[in-house]
């Protein structure tokens, strides 16, 4: 189905089929089944060791071979393996790790796709040494909600066959993968002597930006034959913010010149009076009361105000397009990474940067020259989501409202539609220099439209080549 243009969104919604009761019931049935099987798979995966799987498989195979006890001796192998499995399973119910406590020490931030190192402190409060233990991180349940399952289609789902589209099995797997926010290996623990602390260095690979929430730590102890594990969960709820993935961008020339900034340095500085006094003049309507020079007012009987040196410096707008027809889009994730990389680079220069995007409402965050820090922008970008409720016009209004103060505009778009082209044209007509980045799925050629005059300020970033294209700026 072709994606609707921004203006067509409302029209398109009218034709969107409302699912009937039977469909919802069927989807709910599927959802519960997938939930139960995902939970079962997770439970088994952590409790049965590879050796356990092999023994279980061999037990089943021996059972199948030994059905007729007169024709083979496989039933003897089966009974031994079966007894082994039963004894292991019974002994695995006892863990003996109830007196172990764990504390996690996390950094404030991590970055997507970059290994995050942190540490644990385990303390064995029992009277015996604990050996052969493993620790598992317990992240919050990654299973999708029913709303997510029903409304969020897997990219390319329309190309799947009827059966896959009806049963949503691939959609479920994809959503599960999307909700899994980090790859964490099980941690093998050294022997824990009684009454002592042990520091353990751990690492994880954050897969996506956003808040990575931990629910607790599970201590696994194997049974005597190493087939099954008993798990004891220690609650340790914590979270770490994962910043967007960033690319290396060499210093590059931004469009635009210095502009007068209302409020001057006082606006750009967080603390203190650093403005420079120039002269006194008569009051003009609109002057703030705090600038009235009361002594002169008393002398002259007319309101006199203080006049300061006007501040001119560069102020750029980083505009992030958040309008996508899909609830999830890899193009959007790349666009956020591009925006984060630009924000990170621009902050190295002596300028102000306004990050503008539309979420549940229109946002404008300013940083630079003491107003804010790069980390704060990256924190905001770590949490930015796709906007499906509002129209592109909201972003357009926000930007045009700030246009008089902006020296130059850097736009990161998800697509290069007529609507976006006209927006860029309107910015240009107001004399605002514009630099455009368009993140695309493929490397198909794109018509620059209003950017044809300044091709050096128009960059198409196919998803596979974002890193190389940005490095070549």
């Amino acid at each position: 189905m072709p994606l609707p243009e921004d203006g067509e969104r409302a029209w398109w919604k009218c034709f969107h089929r409302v699912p009937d009761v039977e469909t919802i019931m069927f989807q709910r049935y599927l959802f519960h089944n997938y939930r139960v099987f995902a939970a079962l798979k997770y439970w088994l995966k952590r409790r049965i060791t590879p050796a356990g799987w092999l023994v279980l498989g061999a037990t089943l195979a021996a059972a199948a071979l030994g059905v007729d006890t007169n024709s083979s001796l496989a039933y003897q192998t089966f009974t031994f393996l079966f007894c082994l499995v039963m004894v292991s399973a019974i002994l695995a119910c006892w863990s003996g790790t109830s007196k172990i406590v764990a504390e996690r020490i996390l950094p404030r931030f991590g970055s997507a796709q970059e290994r995050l190192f942190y540490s644990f402190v385990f303390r064995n409060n029992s009277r015996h040494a604990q050996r052969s233990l493993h620790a598992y991180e317990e992240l919050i349940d990654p299973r999708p909600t029913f709303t997510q399952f029903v409304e969020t289609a897997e990219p390319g789902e329309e190309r799947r066959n009827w059966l896959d589209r009806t049963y949503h099995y691939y959609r479920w797997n994809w959503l599960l993968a999307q909700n899994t926010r980090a790859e964490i290996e099980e941690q093998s623990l050294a022997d824990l002597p009684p009454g002592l602390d042990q520091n353990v260095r751990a690492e994880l690979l954050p897969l996506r930006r956003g808040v990575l929430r931990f629910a607790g730590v599970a201590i696994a102890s194997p049974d005597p034959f190493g087939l099954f594990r008993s798990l004891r969960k220690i609650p340790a709820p914590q979270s770490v913010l994962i910043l967007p993935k960033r690319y290396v961008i060499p210093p590059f020339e931004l469009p635009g010149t210095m502009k007068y900034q209302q409020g001057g340095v006082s606006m750009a500085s967080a603390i203190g009076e650093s403005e420079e006094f120039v002269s006194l003049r008569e009051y003009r309507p609109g002057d703030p009361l705090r600038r009235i020079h009361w002594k002169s007012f008393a002398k002259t009987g007319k309101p006199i105000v203080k006049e300061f040196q006007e501040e001119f410096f560069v102020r750029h707008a980083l505009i992030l397009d958040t309008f996508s027809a899909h609830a999830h889009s890899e193009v959007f994730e790349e666009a956020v990474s591009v925006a984060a990389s630009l924000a990170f680079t621009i902050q190295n220069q002596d300028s102000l940067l306004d990050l503008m995007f539309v979420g549940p409402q229109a946002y404008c965050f300013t940083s630079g020259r003491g107003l804010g820090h790069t980390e704060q922008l990256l924190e905001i970008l770590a949490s930015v989501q796709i906007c499906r409720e509002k129209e592109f016009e909201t972003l357009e209004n926000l930007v045009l409202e700030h246009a008089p103060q902006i020296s130059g505009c850097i736009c990161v778009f998800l697509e290069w539609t007529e609507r976006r082209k006209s927006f860029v044209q309107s910015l240009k007509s107001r004399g605002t220099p514009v630099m455009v980045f368009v993140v695309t799925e493929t490397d198909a050629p794109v018509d620059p439209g209003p950017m044809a005059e300044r091709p050096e300020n128009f960059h198409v970033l196919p998803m596979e080549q974002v890193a190389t294209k940005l490095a070549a700026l």
Partner: protein
Amino acid sequence: MKTPIGLLGAALLFWGWQCGLLIWAVPMAIVLEASRFLATRWEFSSGDLKRIWNLCAVLFFGTGIVLYSSEETVRVPLKFTQWIPFPFFPMMLAQAYGNWEKIPLSVFSWFLRRNPETPIAKKTLNVSYLYFALCLLAASATKLTTPLFYPGVVLLIVLALVANRPARLSVSLWVGLITIVAVSGHFGHQQLHMLHGNLEGALARWFVGLFSRQMNMDESQTAIGRVGRISLSGRIVLRLEPEPGGSPPALLRDGSYDVFYRNTTWRNSQNEFATVFVDTNDVATLQEPKALNFSVGIASYLSGGRGELSLPHGSYELHLNFPVVLETNRMGIARIQEGPGLLDMVAYYGPGKSRDAPGSTMDLEIPKQEKATILQIARELNLGEEASERKKLEKIANFFRDHFSYSMEITRKHIDSSGQRTPLGQFLTVARSGHCEYFATATVLLLRQAGIPARYATGYLVDESERRGKTYFVRERDAHAWAMVFRKEKGIWEEFDTTPASAEREVNLAPSSWERISDFFANLKFQFAKWRWSKTSYSRYLSWLLVPLVLFLVWRILAKRTRQRLGSLTDSTGVEPVWPGSDSEFYQFDQKMTALGLGRLPNEPTRYWQQRLEFEVDDPARLAQIFEVHHRLRFDPIGVTEKDRHQLRSSVEYCLRQFEAHPAIKSV
């Protein structure tokens, strides 16, 4: 996770001992265990591993096909399991002698190769423990009852578990626990064996009780008294091929019965079977050869290798396609107890004596319920007054021919509503129409009333219109029943069929349009089964067919390496390079520079060396070219062009000349 030393070898030897394959198991164990003492390893790429896995798959399916074609079907699963360590041995060897500690899962699955980004595709598998488990399962698939089997299995599994023992448990406690498991397993398998025996007996009794009537081979349940249309399929059950110029026998008998009871059922008063000797040429002699004889090829499927034979009356010798256990009873019926899935035989037959036991008093018994009607008809025909057997037979035959008609449809008129007459009585007196079972039963009873011993026979009628080339098809709808009459004066049994021919029967037996299609597939299946159960030892040839395929796969694994070696041997320098780029002119440059005192320092990266040398040379670009081309020659999988190589040579010569001519260096 490597297996303990000797574990795989011990498992292979245990398997070889249990399965009688020790001659194979010993070298396999030696080769596998020797890998621990040899430092040499093969460098397999993932593509090589994939091809080795393909080889395993070919061997796996090839083993299955060879076993299916040479073994009895029921024994194939167990035999196949016994052989399972053979096909997977190449993969085990690849891990033991290869450079891969673990094999990537993508090697085993086409789907994972197509989706290399899936998490499972990135996982690896240590095949040695899996192979160990396969060896144990293969050893378990034997019938060789020995007291050492269970201890052997326990010992091997314990050895494997020891390597995996968690340190949190003391050794004594661990040994105690595994002893409990082993003892429980020992008693468990004894109890399981007993339980199986008891359960099997109980099930057999229940099953026989439930289906005794239908399953009893002593009986023939007729459709006499059953209202409705008799409908039989066109499925081909027999294929006859008479001798050239000859014609097939009209009737093929597979059952004979002497007692009629409950108005519907024929059974045998005695049904003991005796084994018939089958010689080494698979020829079974049923009685003495006859002077006048005919032969006919008969092919029929035997379900599970067992079943009754449909033979022409007077058969005296059978030439079989497969070694069988053949039995006959006193009614002249032959059956196979152990045989092939398709029996293709040549039956020799002729007039005269047959294997049927002479007529006895049982062959003159008439059930009480039918007595009155039979007596009435016999009186109508004056059978009692006729002295000649032949005349009596004629009268009975004429009676049915003249006053009866053939009908496949049994209606209400065949049933006496008052309940006074039996269905057969109703047939003889009122309905006067019916199918072959009515005629055969009535004929037998009338003959007995006339004092002639008679039996009820079942089998097939051979239809002349069903000829296809040399072969006559006998279909399920050709099932027939007739009477066997004992000619006292000759002392022989003869077939006596009184069922009249009728247009209705012809119409009913007309083939449907789908029959040609089903015949086509039935013939395909028959040809395969004929080949499958033929006397030739084709399974041996089938195994040979696998040889070129296996050789091809081995060639594919090794060809790339061989090609690389051949390519390097033809190099102009004549020196066999050990690795790509080892014949580079860069090394000459290195040696010369070392001799000039400008050599590369220990652990100095080439780039740093290059930067150091750039100060000493007039044309740094030529120097940079040496390093750049050499780097590509050494590490770029695409390699360099001949032009690049030429430039490398000329640059080395140029730079060396420059260095040698350098006044500062000259002085050194």
